[in-house]
């Protein structure tokens, strides 16, 4: 009988891609995503480290190769393994996953700016007719210089239940399914007890009816930008009180000067005027 330990090793071994005919040498397994396993490998010809993803299906490689954007991980190379599986070599992203980065970023505007950077590559892909369909924090990396990369594109069918738009179950999806997932991610970014306008933005992104959501990631990002600038948010109808507060925070200096004037005036009237 095979022991548990040996069984685990055999499972990994049977899965290892045989890259002996290529210029890549597997170093270690770094993760599992979408429709395949990701390995850290050395490119012996160019002398650099790459990430190798092994797939059962060629779709994802072709999808990715057609997308060139700073937020989308570049595909260097692709091929077929002896056992028939396909692989592609892509830039090794050195950085941390989104959930880890968010834990280390307590300041809300910074978190929101990171979120806005996620919207850009997704919008770009939509403009090229590609929907991600599996957006979630574990598919988003933040590099050492603050660059945001979205991974695991084009995973067909299988999403992650927590982040899946309702219409994904029936298979008829367009870019707004990604908007839904972005809303779920935003929910995590803003945390509990978030400001009402932000909660409204989230809610609008996560409407069950796609027609009621933001049309795309850029519209969502624009509303976030509005909130950061103390401008009105399209998803939220503000009360008079909220509007005044917003005006105040947008014009802090003016408010301070007016208050100072008022205080001085009152002092002059009541104290010096006796």
């Amino acid at each position, binding site marked *: *009988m*095979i*022991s*548990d*330990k*040996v*069984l685990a*090793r*055999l*499972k990994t*071994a*049977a*899965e*290892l891609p*045989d890259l*002996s005919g290529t210029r890549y040498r597997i170093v270690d397994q770094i993760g*599992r995503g979408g429709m395949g396993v990701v390995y850290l490998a050395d490119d012996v010809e160019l002398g650099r480290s790459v990430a190798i993803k092994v797939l*059962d*299906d*060629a779709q994802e490689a072709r999808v990715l190769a057609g997308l060139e954007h700073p937020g989308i991980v570049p595909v260097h190379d692709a091929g077929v393994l*002896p*056992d*028939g599986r*396909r692989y592609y070599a892509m830039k090794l992203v050195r950085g941390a996953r989104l959930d880890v980065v968010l834990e280390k970023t307590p300041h809300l505007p910074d978190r929101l700016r990171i979120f806005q950077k996620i919207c850009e590559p997704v919008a770009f892909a939509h403009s090229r007719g590609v929907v991600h369909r599996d957006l979630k924090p574990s598919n988003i990396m933040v590099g050492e210089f603050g660059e945001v990369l979205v991974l695991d594109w084009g995973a*067909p*069918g299988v999403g992650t239940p927590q982040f899946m738009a309702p219409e994904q179950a029936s298979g008829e999806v367009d870019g707004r399914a990604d908007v839904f997932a972005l809303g779920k991610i935003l929910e995590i970014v803003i945390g509990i007890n978030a400001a009402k306008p932000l909660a409204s933005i989230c809610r609008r992104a996560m409407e069950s009816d796609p027609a009621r959501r933001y049309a795309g990631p850029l519209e969502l990002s624009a509303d976030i930008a509005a909130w950061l600038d103390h401008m009105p948010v399209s998803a939220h109808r503000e009360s008079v009180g909220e509007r005044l507060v917003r005006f105040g925070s947008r014009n802090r200096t003016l408010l301070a000067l007016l208050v100072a004037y008022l205080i001085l005036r009152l002092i002059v009237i009541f104290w010096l005027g006796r």
Partner: protein
Amino acid sequence: MDADTQIGGANARFPDTHPSVISAAASDDAARRRPGQEALIAAYWKPVYRYIRIRWRCSNEDAKDLTQGFFTAAIEKGFFEAYDARKGAFRTFLRVCLDRFLSNSRKSASRQKRSGELIEVDGDSPERIFEREWTRSVFEDAVVELRANFQKRGRGLAFAVFERYDLAESPESYDHLASEFGISPAAVTNYLASARRELRKLVLERVRGVTSGDREFRCEARAILK
């Protein structure tokens, strides 16, 4: 277009027309049904037996009896016919049948002092236990077949290296094995690669044999290699 057939095309190395033993075991044609049932039982005997021993804490003898009893009941009562591929993996279906059979056989109290009591193994659900034992038996059978294949093709050395590295509890380094076998470390790498490639093929063939369609096959293949 059905995504399955599209992806099946890219994976042309696995013949789509592979006869599923599950549909055979459920067929009305007796000539197909018997071999189908036998194949299923052969594939699942060990996992079922081990599952019973682990989860129900039975002795070797009791577990064997119950395993036999289960498969007998399966044939007599037509469990395999009741399986609906749309509702999930066959493996899960079988386990659920097994659980039901076992709890019923407990209730027929005459055997109470011999069969064990039901214990939840810490942290592992029945589903995981069964999956693990099934995985184990698939790999064991594949390794046996691998050994036979390699011997037949005169590649005994390759298998020996594989056995010493991948099948060992605490394997030695490549260099150590290389000097032990009197070959280069590069040869060690090559032998391992080819043995692993063959093992993967055999494992997937077995999974193919007991799944009832492309989607289930892909699910099970992913589960077994995770």
